[in-house]
């Protein structure tokens, strides 16, 4: 009997208060938690209500940044835009970020492509281009005239004698490592480094290339990477 009463009270409270939107203040601004069970229209209505009710805008009070947490709700780009304009219009709030637990399959696959290590066993010969979205682990050589490109890092178990381009989409943290480092050209993000004109025979084994603090590509011992790029250790980095 008593359980029943409690339950009844509980339900009553929810329906009465319609708490679809809760506002919390943090040190970085406001966080709006938006319920993920109600319909989008209900959410929108309540949001508008809430924001206009507590109206006391002083014309030139500073903008407050708002973080939206939408839980397990997927928002289309149009809906995101709608929320941003609504919030911006009704108060001196501006949405700094929208966080959802939901990814579309497309986004998930894209994320997977960009973060997975693709391992390929072959010789990339003159005239051939091997291009992967994430990290590349090549078991084999890149011959002169051959090119390997990766959105992430490039690791070569073999000789790099052609062109390697890591961080292809603009990642300057990306590195290139090879068992034998004798490239004709190295590129990381938008930085390029041509092979020296003189031919050196020693010291090309187990080396890595990275962008240093002067925005230059430098080649050094492989062992330095653990200090320079500690992130390489975590498999699920960039999540």
């Amino acid at each position, binding site marked *: 009997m008593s359980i029943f009463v409690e339950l009844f009270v509980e339900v009553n409270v929810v329906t009465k208060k319609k708490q679809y939107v809760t506002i919390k203040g943090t040190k970085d601004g406001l966080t709006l938690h938006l319920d993920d069970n109600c319909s989008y229209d209900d959410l929108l209505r309540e949001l508008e209500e809430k924001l206009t009710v507590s109206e006391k805008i002083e014309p030139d009070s500073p903008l407050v940044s708002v973080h939206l947490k939408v839980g397990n709700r997927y928002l289309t780009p149009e809906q995101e835009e709608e929320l941003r304009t609504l919030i911006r219009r009704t108060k001196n709030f501006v949405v700094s970020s929208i966080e959802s637990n939901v990814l579309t399959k497309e986004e998930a696959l894209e994320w997977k492509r960009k973060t997975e290590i693709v391992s390929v066993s072959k*010789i990339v*010969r*003159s*005239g*051939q281009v091997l291009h992967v979205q994430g990290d590349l682990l090549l078991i084999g*050589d890149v*011959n*002169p*005239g*051959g090119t390997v490109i990766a959105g992430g890092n490039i690791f070569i178990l073999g000789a790099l004698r052609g062109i390697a381009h890591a961080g292809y989409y603009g990642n300057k943290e990306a590195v290139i490592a090879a068992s034998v480092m004798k490239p004709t050209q190295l590129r990381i993000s938008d930085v390029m480094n041509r092979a020296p004109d003189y031919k050196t025979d020693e010291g090309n084994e187990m080396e890595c290339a990275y962008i240093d603090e002067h925005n230059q590509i430098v080649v050094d011992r492989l062992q330095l990477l653990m200090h320079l790029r500690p992130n390489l250790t975590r498999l699920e980095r960039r999540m």
Partner: protein
Amino acid sequence: MGEAIVITSGKGGVGKTTTTANVGTALAILGKRVCLVDTDIGLRNLDVVMGLENRIIYDLVDVVEGRCTVQKALVKDKRFDNHLYLLPAAQTSDKSAVTPEQMKQLVDELKQDYDYVLIDCPAGIEQGYRNAVAGADEAIVVTTPEVSAVRDADRIIGLLENEEHMKPPRLIINRIRGHMVKNGDMLDVDEIVMHLSIDLLGIIADDENVIKASNKGEPIVLDPNSKASIAYRNIARRILGESVPLLPLEEDRKGLFSKIKKLFGVH
């Protein structure tokens, strides 16, 4: 059912035609029935190197365009009764006179009658190359110990590896000069093989007798005493599946000999 082997290189003038003539002749000497096909339409050479130029009546384009049967166009090499034949290229057309499909059909037909069909490929990676590889079951890549030739060989190997109907290509390194290798002026065999990482089928020394023999229309392999001849015969035996150790080059042997002499204080 025979086997079709294309001899190719990418770069011109490295010895495809010479290799086709000599390896083909060596296979005939070893008792195989061999048909050589010249696909270098417009720049035919194989007939000259084989000394069969005067006996050409029909050519490959005549066959493809239905003006005669293959049998009629084949030129018989009388030195090897019934073992060695040549299908000459046309001299008056160009590479576009034949399609890869037509070439495949033609080679398939020849494979019915011969143990080996050797296809001499033109230089380059365009239509002539595509025609030459269309009917081939495997490929021999010829290179010389020069950086540019090795680069082109690498390019060709990359293309050949994409041909799903073919076995992995094998390599012949031609025109090696022992003294230049020793002085570091030329790439050495190990370097080239490591770089291209395909199986090595054989090496041929640079030998002016090869040129002389070709000019006479008598492939060097017919001279049993020449080093180059033995090298070509060894290549033929390796194609037949025998395991024949690599022949050291003349200069290397001299080098070794003088080293030994030095060791014993003889000069």
